């Protein structure tokens, strides 16, 4: 009986601890974070590959002003269809929704390029800077998505993302460290995995922080283009601002591979074929 009571008490304590943790989490994001999230599958249309993104923000949040720009940098092996190898900056017109309907941004891509999408969402005195950096492999010649080309990026406060140089693979992968450089030293950074808070990390003295998303079984079992969002969020109460960077993270190319296993299969294949050739050669009569 005593044991049962003890278990019951422990259960109540654990439950309350969980609740407290949940509250703490809600406390952690109470500063109304905003980040970009991919919506739906990439589509190929007459106008190019269409990538849709929507800002994720707490229910009921209303924005006074929304500004969106994106910087397009051609990929290293891109057969540039826009005719330029230099980064180009475009402004997207995004209507502020009068009701609670979702905001949707579509980017048309016609080449291999790195897109740095930046959004400024102001709500009262608070401002959220949401950034999303992703590669796309555009599949069409026309990319006119109604964007307006501008000469300089607006001078917002924003974290800067610097991905480690993978030379020829542009996609962020699970199991690989994502390094982000910001100009805010020693700050707490919230890491979200597909919208769920995972952990809190801190930037170092130079403002750099890093995170290695673990391999994900659900991504591994899905197709090669399955991805999830990893979001880094930084709350700056003194500036009444919230910064976020979203990165689409794909299944690791080599996250679940075995070189030893591969070499074993190769050795077996070589041995089998060799045996076949040698056994067939026994019929050879000219010696």
């Amino acid at each position, binding site marked *: 009986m005593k044991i049962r009571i003890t278990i019951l008490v422990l259960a109540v304590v654990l439950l309350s601890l969980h609740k407290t943790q949940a509250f703490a989490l809600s406390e952690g994001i109470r500063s109304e974070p905003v980040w970009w999230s991919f919506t739906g599958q990439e589509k190929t249309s007459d106008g190019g590959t269409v990538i849709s993104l929507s800002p994720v923000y707490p229910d009921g949040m209303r924005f006074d002003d929304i500004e969106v720009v994106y910087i397009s940098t051609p990929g290293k092996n891109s057969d540039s269809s826009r005719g330029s190898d230099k980064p180009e900056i475009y402004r997207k017109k995004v209507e502020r929704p009068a009701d609670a309907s979702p905001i949707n941004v579509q980017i048309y891509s016609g080449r291999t390029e790195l897109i740095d999408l930046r959004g400024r969402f102001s709500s009262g005195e608070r401002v959220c800077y949401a950034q999303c950096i992703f590669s796309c492999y555009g599949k069409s010649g026309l990319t006119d998505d109604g964007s307006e080309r501008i000469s300089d990026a607006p001078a917002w406060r924003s974290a800067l993302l610097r991905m480690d140089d993978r030379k020829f693979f542009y996609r962020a992968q699970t199991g690989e460290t994502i390094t982000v450089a910001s100009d805010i030293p020693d700050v707490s950074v919230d890491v979200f995995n597909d919208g769920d808070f995972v952990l809190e990390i801190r930037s170092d003295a130079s403002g750099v922080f890093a995170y290695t998303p673990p391999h994900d079984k659900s991504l591994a079992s899905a197709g090669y283009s399955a991805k999830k969002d990893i979001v880094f969020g930084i709350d700056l109460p003194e500036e009444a601002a919230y910064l976020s960077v979203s990165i689409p993270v794909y299944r690791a190319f080599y996250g679940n591979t*075995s070189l030893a296993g591969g070499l074993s299969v190769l050795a077996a294949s070589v041995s089998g074929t060799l045996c076949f050739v040698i056994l067939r050669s026994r019929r050879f009569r000219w010696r």
Partner: protein
Amino acid sequence: MRLSRLRHTVQYASFLALMYGGRFGLRLGSAVPCFSCPYVPGCGGYCYLMGLQGYIGFGMSFAVAKGIGLLHALAYFTLFVVLVAVFGKLWCGWICPFGLIQDWFSSVRRFFGIRERVIPFETKQRLAYVKYGLLVYIAVIPPLATAGLIHQDFYLPFCGICPGKSILPLFAGETSYMTLNFDNAVSLGFSAALLMTTGIALVGMFFKERFFCIFCPMLALIHMLKPLTALRLIKAPSSCTGCGNCRRVCPMDIETVHREKTSRDVQSEECLDCGRCVESCPSGGALGIYFSKLKLFASSRACAAETRKIR
């Protein structure tokens, strides 16, 4: 300059360009009609077979077979056709990096004096259908994957089993395709199949000259465009003494050139336009490589006499 020396020079130059050219800014696009493997980090251009399976070909699926998307695919296909029309099978015999690697294997075998295995004529005829089967495989599987009817990892089904994918990246220090991929059943199946075909290809390439070319769907694709190609192997049957040199030196063991007694066009399906037969033919003008009506190189007794075959 002897033809084979010229061919070797071109082979090495194109090997360097296609394997490492990307590191120096060379971008030949996605319509290269040979195994310029996209899995080689820093390659100079992409094998058209990948494009054909993927985003400029069947992989686009029927859903986008309209508008600019289709035009984009057609543009690449046109570029491929033009490249094939101009260079024909030179892509196979003179340019393909995987072809050069196969030649290296043969050189090692020759160095050790190991006998080349002969594939019986009937077997070879049956094996000739494999490359067309692979073309059908390339055409059917990617749209199914794009349409979601089968797992997405079927998207590049030929690359999944092409030994070029595992062997060529090794020359750029990339060993990742020598691994088993346990992500899911499909990726495991493909990685295992790739290593199986790699093993077969490695042994095959050692014992049989240009072994992989017997099965290469690119060769089949180029051959299907034969009516458009200007480069031809032409025989003057009335000059042939039937010595059999052409058959003996042929890396693909083609009999047609030797046996043909009436037709001038001896550009057969397997022919790689390597020109070895022309070089070794002792009958003056019996064999020649022509670009349309222009004679590029013709056989002569003097050339055959100077062709040192012992290496």
